[in-house]
């Protein structure tokens, strides 16, 4: 075990742990009534894919995420303060509180946007990759989506176009076994997603283990191939530890199933490996975890203290130019005024 590898695993652990704690704080924010709505989709248990894939990205690479995208964004470098504030619908959020959890984005980081439409962000990366090919830079663009999106037609149209034009696109499916309350077995005829991707001409990688380091190395290879040779597909199998959204208690699946599957925890696996390989000792990990916990506490506080946005913000950002949007109130006042002396 060389030190480079040591630091990879430590990095991956840290990233996964940050996601985990971030999501726990979002849950807490929700309990405190501080989130904008209840449509909060946590990725607890699913940290391996986001950590590995984002770590294999380079400057200028871009990505879109699905509705369960906090972890991906955070792993890629998203600022947890601004993320948390966005999830709370506050002024200091990434999108001024107008986008929320499902529409968070950061153009500086290459985050072309989360999407509340299952599959909605997939063709975006095909277009981004078209730009990269046209502009002749060396970037890739990555779409993250769930197993549910494997049943959206737009995915196959996108795979075909990426394949036809040989674009640097990665389609990354975070397969957490469920689309809301529907188990994958009840959603697909055949579970072999790689076969689908291959039939459209894509290079594929299927990750169904907990070894983040190995996964990272495989992903890195694949993404480098994609950069030069054309589109690819990654499926990361995992398990959605909790409900679909904050209010869902998952009555459609058994407690045994949950308990059994939560044992496959990529963070525990990484921690044990770190200890076994003596990369860190138990105390190091404790203090690392503490640091993360503190960081996320600060973010949560930041979000709660951020002010709500002004009402006038309803009317900005609709059009690019200074095309001013007349409020309905104005429209009505005008009509009333014109007709005053009737």
């Amino acid at each position, binding site marked *: 075990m060389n030190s480079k590898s040591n630091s990879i695993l430590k990095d991956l652990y840290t990233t996964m742990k940050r996601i985990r704690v971030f999501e726990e704080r979002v849950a807490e924010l929700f309990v405190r009534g501080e989130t904008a709505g209840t449509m909060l989709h946590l990725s607890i248990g699913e940290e391996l894919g986001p950590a590995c894939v984002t770590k294999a990205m380079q400057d200028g690479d871009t990505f879109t995420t699905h509705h369960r995208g906090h972890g991906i964004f955070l792993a890629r470098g998203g600022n947890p303060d601004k993320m948390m504030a966005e999830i709370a*619908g506050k002024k200091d959020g990434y999108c001024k509180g107008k986008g929320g959890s499902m529409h968070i984005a950061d153009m500086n980081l290459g985050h072309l946007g989360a999407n*509340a439409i299952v599959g909605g962000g997939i063709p975006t990366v095909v277009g981004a990759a078209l730009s990269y090919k046209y502009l002749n830079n060396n970037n890739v663009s990555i779409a993250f989506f769930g197993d549910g999106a494997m049943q959206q037609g737009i995915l196959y149209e996108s795979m075909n176009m990426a394949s036809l034009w040989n674009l640097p696109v990665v389609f990354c499916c975070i397969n957490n076994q469920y689309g809301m309350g*529907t188990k994958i077995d009840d959603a697909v005829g055949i579970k072999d997603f790689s076969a689908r991707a291959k039939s459209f001409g894509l290079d594929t990688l299927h990750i169904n283990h907990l070894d983040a380091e190995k996964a990272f190395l495989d992903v890195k290879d694949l993404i480098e191939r994609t950069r030069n040779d054309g589109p690819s597909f990654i499926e990361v199998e995992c398990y959605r530890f909790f409900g679909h959204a904050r209010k869902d208690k998952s009555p459609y699946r058994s407690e045994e199933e949950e308990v059994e599957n939560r044992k496959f925890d990529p963070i525990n696996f990484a921690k044990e490996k770190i200890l076994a390989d003596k990369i860190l000792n138990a105390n190091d990990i404790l203090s690392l975890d503490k640091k993360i916990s503190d960081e996320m506490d600060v973010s949560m506080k930041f979000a709660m203290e951020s002010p709500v946005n002004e009402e006038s913000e309803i*009317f900005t950002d*609709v059009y690019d130019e200074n095309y001013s949007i007349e409020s*309905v109130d104005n429209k009505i006042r005008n009509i009333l005024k014109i007709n005053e002396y009737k």
Partner: protein
Amino acid sequence: MNINKQEFFDKITFRDSLRLAMYDEMSEDDKVVIMGEDVGKYGGAYGATKGLLDKFGSKRVIDTPISEPTIVGTAIGAAMTGLKPIAELMYVDFFGMSMDQIGNQSAKIRYMFGGQISVPMVIRTQGGTGRSGGAQHSQSLESWIMYMPGLYLVMPSNPNDAYHLLRESIKTNTPTVFIEHKMLYNFTGSLDKNKKTIFGKANKVKNGNDISIITYSRMTNFALEAAKLLENNNISAEVIDLRTLNPLDKKTIIESVNKTNHALVLSEGHYTSGVASEITSIIFENCFKSLKRPVIRYTAEDTPVPVAPNLEQKYIPTIERIKQYCLDILN
């Protein structure tokens, strides 16, 4: 739910009314099936199909993959070959991806094929603001449907209408889009199975003499609240709940405005090119001589729906401002 007790019917939720409508219709006609994402085990994202899988089994309450265009398209094929499907689209916002099957296929099949066949299906879906769902989960897209000849369009505001209109929607052979407002599911009211709602007939939910508030769906309740406030100003507002936007009961609208000589059109859709524009035109055209003041349409803003709760609230009509605009019109 204990449906044997009268009190159940006296105070039933909008959600339970819908469930009961489907339950009753499915019990009567074994050609009625339900299909959609999470309508079975999950019971529907907003719980409107809870319990139906247990009762009718998975051959009739069908959980589908997340494939909206094909959900609608499959319902079309089933409807053309003997079944009466109720297809659920979890959010009205998913019209975006399924409008071909809705608007180009289901709406036009009968016409294009010269009347050879009907497409007896219902698309149940859910829309509107109120839960910080954001720009892609809070829309009011009824105007797209109202623009499509060949589709009925139903948007009830209370449990009794929800029950009867859903049953009628299932019974009719014309493809019907049935839009439920997400904030109405927990709304309660009484249900009388014998007090049938006439399909295509607007409802004068409150009688009044000074101004007509013409509206539908959740905004009916806003209008009623505003009308109450107006009483304090000695103003008697009439509130018309359209219930079905196609067929549209122009007669009731026109009669009301011809009586009150003033009108406010209220909708949660956008201002420009929405349902409110249509209703406003109708009133102006038909009540041009009796109107004492111009019709005012009060709607949501001409922007996407913001997530932040404080913005979302201000984005749609408020009861206070409904009242205020009525006063302004009458001034």
